[in-house]
């Protein structure tokens, strides 16, 4: 157990505290935000910046090349994999309509046919199709429980 005595230790401790604070903001954002994409926005803060700050702080404090290389490996790995998993999760979230489309300002994936026309059975309760009544009628017609108009 060593104390903070030099400027180097002070820098390391400040970096560690900043990283820990980013983890707290991630938790707050996950609880407070309202759909998958905004929660991912909050959750990615410690995934990249927080881990980087903490790894730099740890490398300064640990003072050994083996530990430093391993911390560098973790940081590089996080920065390589975070975009991949974020892309896959957000793609599935958009397709399964776990996105509040009424809150989007720009929606470039959306085309005429891709408008929310049908009930698919797995929508979150706060993001129904546009014009819910007509959508329900058309969904029923598509599945054949109502005669076509």
């Amino acid at each position, binding site marked *: 157990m060593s104390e903070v005595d030099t400027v180097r230790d002070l820098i390391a401790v400040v970096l560690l505290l900043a990283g820990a604070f980013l983890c*707290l*903001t991630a938790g707050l954002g*996950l609880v407070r935000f309202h759909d998958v994409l905004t929660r991912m926005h909050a959750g990615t803060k410690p995934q990249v910046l927080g881990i980087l700050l903490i790894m730099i*702080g740890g490398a300064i404090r640990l003072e050994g090349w083996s530990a430093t290389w391993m911390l560098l490996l973790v940081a590089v*790995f996080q920065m390589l994999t975070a975009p991949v*998993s974020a892309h896959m*999760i957000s793609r*599935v979230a958009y397709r399964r309509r776990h996105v509040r489309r009424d809150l989007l300002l720009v929606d470039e994936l959306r085309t005429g046919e891709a408008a929310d026309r049908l009930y698919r059975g797995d929508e979150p309760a706060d993001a129904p199709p546009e014009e819910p009544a007509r959508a329900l009628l058309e969904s029923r017609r598509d599945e054949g429980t109502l005669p076509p108009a």
Partner: protein
Amino acid sequence: MTAVYWAAYVMLGGGALLTLVRLARGPSLLDRVVATDVLLVIISAGLAVYAALARDPTVVPVLVVVSLLAFVGSVSVARYIGGMLMSSAGDGQDVGLPEAAEEQAARAAEGEQR
């Protein structure tokens, strides 16, 4: 030094607890995937903070394992949810979930009765 310990661990623990709240409440599976991802990152951050503050490099290899695990877990669950969608028509837009055969039969019977 004790104050630094307390501040770091309280912030990390608060973040982990709030993430657990989202993991328990999260309305969809994807919210839970995101929450699990963030929880694993916070766990690895906590291990790294411990290693740095106690100058104890023995937990550093665990960090590599935890970060690998987070990536593999979130990608495989996302692939799994994506596989639940039916084969897409057009420009990658899904056409909905596959229906169970019993459900389709029940719907057809209901249609005949009307």
